[in-house]
């Protein structure tokens, strides 16, 4: 077993997809296991070592009072805490409830709603504890995940660029789908990191990495409306995995207003 820094992987409200990205690093995973001491990673091993941990990867959002207690403990036990994925960084798709009546949702979905004990809102990890680094995406990019681990191992800053997806499209030579095809695209306001995956398949970016550093949704509202997309389509475009991110909330509001003004 490695004598390297200890790693814990913790899950809150999420689908497990982000932590599985670590297991998806097939070519590197053995080397990673040699470099770090995997102390707590239930998706990978039943052997659990008690904290403290040098690095905690935290997936998922806070949706129950119990989650919150557990999160406070993870933070206390971890030297560096890295949130991974849109659930952890923005509240995830489950934050659609934030603008709805949770009791009503519970009644509609569950046969026995009385067993459900949940909070009104799904909230990002950073709303409750200090987060050292955030990895965006639904799911996270495994290269970025690996880079963060390597950066922490070598004591350097991770290369997480907060600029928009447009930078990645232009570097890849991908033609702008908004300008050349009128496809609604959130790339201009979305955080880079995916390598501009969707536009490279001639699809508009649907913002799964959440808001970029500036996220000028107000300036993008006109071009999105000019693409011919209907206001409710634009509201939906902003209402996916990062629905609760403040800049995307603003995008939804502007799209609705655009509909109202028509």
């Amino acid at each position, binding site marked *: 077993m490695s004598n390297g820094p200890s790693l814990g992987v913790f899950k809150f409200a999420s689908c497990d997809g982000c932590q599985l990205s670590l297991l998806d690093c097939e070519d*590197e995973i053995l*080397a*990673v296991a*040699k*470099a770090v001491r995997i102390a707590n990673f239930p998706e990978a091993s039943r052997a659990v070592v008690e904290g403290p941990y040098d690095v905690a990867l935290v997936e998922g959002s806070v949706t129950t009072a119990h989650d919150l207690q557990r999160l406070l403990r993870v933070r206390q036990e971890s030297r560096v805490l890295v949130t991974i994925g849109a659930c952890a960084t923005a509240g995830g798709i489950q934050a659609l409830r934030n603008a709805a009546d949770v009791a009503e949702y519970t009644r509609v979905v569950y046969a026995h709603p009385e067993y459900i004990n949940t909070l009104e809102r799904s909230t990002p990890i950073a709303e409750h504890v200090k987060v050292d680094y955030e990895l965006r995406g639904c799911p996270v990019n495994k290269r970025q995940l690996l*880079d963060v681990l*390597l*950066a922490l*191992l*070598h004591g*350097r800053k991770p*290369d997480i*660029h*907060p*600029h*928009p997806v*447009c*930078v990645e499209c*232009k*570097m*890849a*030579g*991908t*033609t*702008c789908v*908004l*300008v*050349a*095809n*009128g496809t609604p695209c959130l*790339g*201009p*306001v979305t955080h880079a990191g995916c390598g501009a995956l969707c536009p490279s398949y*001639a699809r508009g970016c649907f913002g799964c990495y959440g808001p970029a*550093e*500036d996220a*000028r949704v*107000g*300036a*993008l509202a*006109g*071009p999105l409306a*000019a693409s011919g997309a209907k206001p409710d389509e634009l509201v939906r475009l902003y209402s996916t995995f990062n629905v609760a991110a403040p800049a995307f909330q603003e995008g939804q509001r502007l799209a609705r207003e655009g509909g109202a003004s028509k």
Partner: protein
Amino acid sequence: MNGDAVLELTGLDALIAALIARGYRVIGPRVQDGAIVLDELQHAADLPVGVKDEQSPGRYRLAPRSDNAHFGYVVGPHAYKRVFHVPVETLFRVRRDGRGFEVTETPVDARPVALFGARACDVAATTVQDRVLAEGAHPDPRYVARRKDAFVVAVACNEPGATCFCASMNTGPRPADGFDLSLTELLPEPGVPHRFYVEVGTERGRAVLDEVAHALPSDEDRRRARALADAAVASMDKHLETRHLRDLLIDNPEHPRWRAVAERCITCTSCTLVCPTCFCSSMDDVTSLEGEAERVRRWDSCFTRSYSYMHGGPARPSVEARYRHWLTHKLAGWIDQFGSSGCVGCGRCITWCPAGIDLTEEVAAIRADVKAARGASKEA
């Protein structure tokens, strides 16, 4: 100039073949994903034959032409900086060797390229980038290695696009220099087949042309080429007044127009990354599990907040500051720094801005306002 010639339509394919036979990677326009981009060419048939592009601020569409023109379009989203100032590259690798570390430069892919069908604005842009990256006090050896033997087959624009303003920047639409060969497409006329009027720019160009069947041009061929160039200038609707432009921008850093344009700017960086002369880059240091490290250079943009980030925060936190910085550098500071404007009038930043911001309009608005204010103060 080293003379002229005419090339029949079939000569285009022969010209590409001759360049490939000489070992060039031929890079030229091709249709891909709804746009005309730059990619490797094998045959003349790879060109966007019978295709035109319709461009306006924030909008680009391809459409069929009614003729068989091989160059009946203008510039697309790619510029030659993709070839010489590549989007991303590893500069060197570092390996620990017990006592210290060993640095190994990564090799440069310096296979010579031939730019085929390069527009006058893009030939001029390459010259502008040369001044910055190859001819300054600190040349970039990787850029120089890729650029130094490049062969240029330029082509005159007979039909400028709606966002083109090269005539204002004195770079086109007919290539004046910087090429080995320059073509003007002469579409078929009764009794005269589809052909290309060729101007020879260099001895090397002459040598390549001599490997391809060609003929002496008639006076009519020459006249048509000149007339097309004149008509192209006349048909260019967009203009940028360059008189005292440097001082106009340097003297008006607080003009309210900067704030107005900043409200429309998404800070998406598209203008800078499609610009054929913008050269900014950042470095990323990457490490491997084995403890090796790499230094990677990648394109960056002055429109990102992080680009100007230093200890304590970004130097240009406001969008207003970033737009002003870009335009003032491009049209004014560049002249002080590198001896020419940084703008060649290709119009890419206008077409590919999702918000359709048009720098010629921004400059015109500041100029009109300053002129009006000056007039008012004279009256008073």
